């Protein structure tokens, strides 16, 4: 889902980048003071874990596969604002150091994976957590990565490199990620449950989430 340079029209890349900067600035303001110094390394560990997990491409035979993106997991563990900043760090390091995802299109890649997947994933999690936290985390990962892929498909589909074939791109990327997203959902649910079970004191208490 990391878009290389040349795929998205410059106007699209710039527009999405501006939106991304605004969203992350608001996120940073919202989170300011929310965590204490002792839990600051948690943001680093979650981001580093997502970076490492993103390198593990799922070896699904047949030529179409994906890797874990982790936006929904970051949202469930850290809350949406810190989650967005953590995944934005990952996507930026990937682009600047490893050439994974373009530089001009960096804002769009951050938008798809660190804004859309994180906030859509978090919304799904909040909606379903009162019924089952495990199920809610699964749905958050599944629908979060699908939403991120749809956002990427829209940016690509309105660009000249993809011959403005928006519907084709949406169909290929949307349907594939809806299926592959089941793996993202499973990882999100299993990892979030084991981390919360292992150290319930470390993660923000989301019991108020289920109360609503």
């Amino acid at each position, binding site marked *: 889902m990391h878009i*290389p340079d040349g795929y998205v029209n410059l106007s699209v890349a710039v527009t999405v980048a501006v939106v991304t900067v605004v969203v992350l600035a608001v996120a940073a303001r919202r989170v300011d003071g929310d965590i204490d110094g002792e839990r600051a390394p948690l943001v680093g560990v979650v981001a580093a*874990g997502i970076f490492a997990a993103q*390198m593990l491409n799922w070896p*699904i035979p047949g030529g179409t596969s994906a890797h874990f993106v982790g936006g929904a997991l970051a949202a469930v563990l850290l809350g949406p604002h810190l989650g967005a*900043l953590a995944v934005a760090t990952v996507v930026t390091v990937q682009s600047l*150091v490893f050439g994974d995802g373009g530089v001009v299109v960096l804002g769009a890649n951050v938008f798809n994976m660190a804004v859309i997947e994180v906030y859509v994933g978090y919304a799904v999690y909040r909606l379903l957590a009162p019924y089952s936290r495990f199920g809610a985390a699964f749905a958050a990962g599944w629908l979060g990565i699908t939403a991120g*892929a749809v956002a990427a498909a829209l940016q*690509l589909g309105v660009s000249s490199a993809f011959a403005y074939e928006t519907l084709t791109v949406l169909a*290929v990327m949307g349907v594939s990620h809806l299926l592959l997203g089941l793996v993202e959902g499973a990882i999100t649910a299993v990892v979030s449950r084991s981390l919360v079970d292992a150290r319930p004191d470390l993660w923000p208490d989301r019991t108020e989430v289920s109360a609503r």
Partner: protein
Amino acid sequence: MTESGTPDGPDGPDASPGGRTGGPPDWFRSALLVLLALVVLAPVFGWAAGQVGYAEPMENAAEATGAADQADALHHGLMPDYSVPGLGSAAGTLVAALAGTALTLAVATGFGRLLANGNGAD
């Protein structure tokens, strides 16, 4: 290393891990081990992805619409495509995974400290 031997103060062992001395929290060592395990898996998954002909849906969409040759790498980065120039593919992936994970850990922890209220910020 100080998992159970060090008194943690009146708040109990979990409430204030490592906070008073400014050292790393008690869970940090286990977290690093988990990260290291993921890093070691990277070359294994890299090999497996090559075996199955890994391609992402976006690449398929690029093939379908003729966009594939429009990709234009303006910037390759220090370790292009998670490899280290001059190192073999498995060793390069391992070094890239280690360096990227460490860098991400450092930068995101820095963000966490900047945004934390007071006591953790230097």
